[in-house]
């Protein structure tokens, strides 16, 4: 019958959680309203801004369009799960170093998106600006970073520094990969 609650299990930033929910509740609302996880933000609630981006089983998604019931069993990482104030994730550190924010509202979504985006690029995922989509090695130019991050809007327009922050981390990866190969 309509209106019955469903039991949903989520691992949130490393901690197993369980909650009974109305099936209409999204992952975003489950996190914020039911589980008190405030490191995920609600912007448009329509899939248009990226503020609600979280990483689920390694992939970035929009939690505002994800029904929690459908994500039963998922491993969810929010910006708080990437690092702590004492031990920032390299991406968080780069955002701080590069002043890649003003009000900070879009930042948790930007950081989650950027971390997962670098994984996608490393795995050879093509983008709209890739010169040849059959090429599985991605040259992460600024144009590539901008295109791959186009689902994350910033009302404060911190884009220039966001790209720099992401390039800092991408550069570290390249340095590390080069070191490993040698």
């Amino acid at each position, binding site marked *: 019958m*309509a*209106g019955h609650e469903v039991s949903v299990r989520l691992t949130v930033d490393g901690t197993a959680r369980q909650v009974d929910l109305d*099936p209409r509740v999204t992952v975003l609302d489950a996190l914020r309203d039911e589980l008190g996880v405030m490191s995920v933000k609600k912007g448009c609630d329509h899939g248009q801004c990226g503020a609600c*981006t979280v990483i689920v089983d390694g*992939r970035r998604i929009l939690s505002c369009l994800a*029904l929690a019931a459908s994500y039963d069993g998922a491993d969810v990482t929010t910006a708080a799960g990437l690092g702590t104030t004492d031990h920032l994730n390299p991406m968080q550190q780069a955002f701080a170093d590069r002043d890649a924010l003003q009000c900070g509202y879009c930042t948790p979504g930007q950081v989650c998106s950027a971390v997962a985006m670098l994984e996608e690029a490393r795995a050879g*995922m*093509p983008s709209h600006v890739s010169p040849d989509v059959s090429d*599985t090695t991605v040259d992460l130019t600024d144009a590539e970073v*901008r295109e791959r991050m186009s689902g994350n809007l910033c009302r404060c327009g911190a884009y220039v520094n966001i790209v720099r922050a992401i390039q800092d981390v991408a550069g570290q990866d390249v340095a590390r990969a080069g070191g490993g190969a040698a």
Partner: protein
Amino acid sequence: MKPFAYERPTTVEEAVALAADGGTYLAGGTNLVDHLRLGIREADRLVDLTRLPLDEITERADGGLVIGSGVRNSDLAAHPLVRTRFPFVTQALVAGASGQLRNMATTGGNLLQRTRCVYFQDPTTPCNKREPGSGCSAVEGFGRYNAILGASEDCVATHPSDLCVPLAALDTEVVVVGPSGERRIAFGDLHRLPGDRPDLDTTLDPGELVLAVEVPPLDFAVRSRYRKVRERASYAFALVSVAAALDVHDGTVRDVRLALGGVSHRPHRARIAEEALRGRPATPDQFRSAIEAELGAASPGEHNAFKVPLVRNTVVDVLTGLTEGSAA
């Protein structure tokens, strides 16, 4: 959002049975969840398809592909056989939505997504598609995105999908299963023109589930291109788009596949232009007269008249580009 029950079947049989009596399929949710929230759609019971074994891409013996309806747009785009044999499919996918959305959106959901007509998405305005008989606000209203081919006086909406444009250019088949069994639908017969029933987007029967999309082999699709024209560089729907594959030999068009997005209630296979090109010289002049023949039936309004020259120029440019590539 009206309350609904939620079911998560693990077999296709269960899913079809659950949908047969009043269920609505949920895949990635990127279109449906938004519509439920906007109140432009209601459901009594959601039948979640994400645990069905429909997320594989397999190669047929003839080199064609069987794409499960649950395959996510990002996985389809990145698949080695898709990006090498049918690059315009990958190009169309990565031109759509955003990285996050492509990780969620499925092949089946992409085919069956509803129009982005602004009035359809606004429950306070008349719309024959949302509320049959209430009228069409777009005929007299904001018309930039309206159809130029195959529209009716009851609806001038366009189909929003990028993926569907190359799929229309290929002789794709859609495999569906419903309460009365399995059937195959030629891609061109899946989506409807609006006529006097704009509430129906497709020819699917109620409760029918899309199992897979089958793409037959097409050797010259290795030389294919998807070009999307939109109002900003990224993260926007198409004004118009063009999917083309071209086979040129000694300066003559041996074969061609051409489809258009943003022009009609369904992805538009440009068969008149294709016919006009086979056996003709592969020159910009021929490309132009072929697409002009296709657009002869266009009936644009005041706000979307720009689409006619935009489609023409984009087609000429895409085909010319493909010709240059093949000179080598």
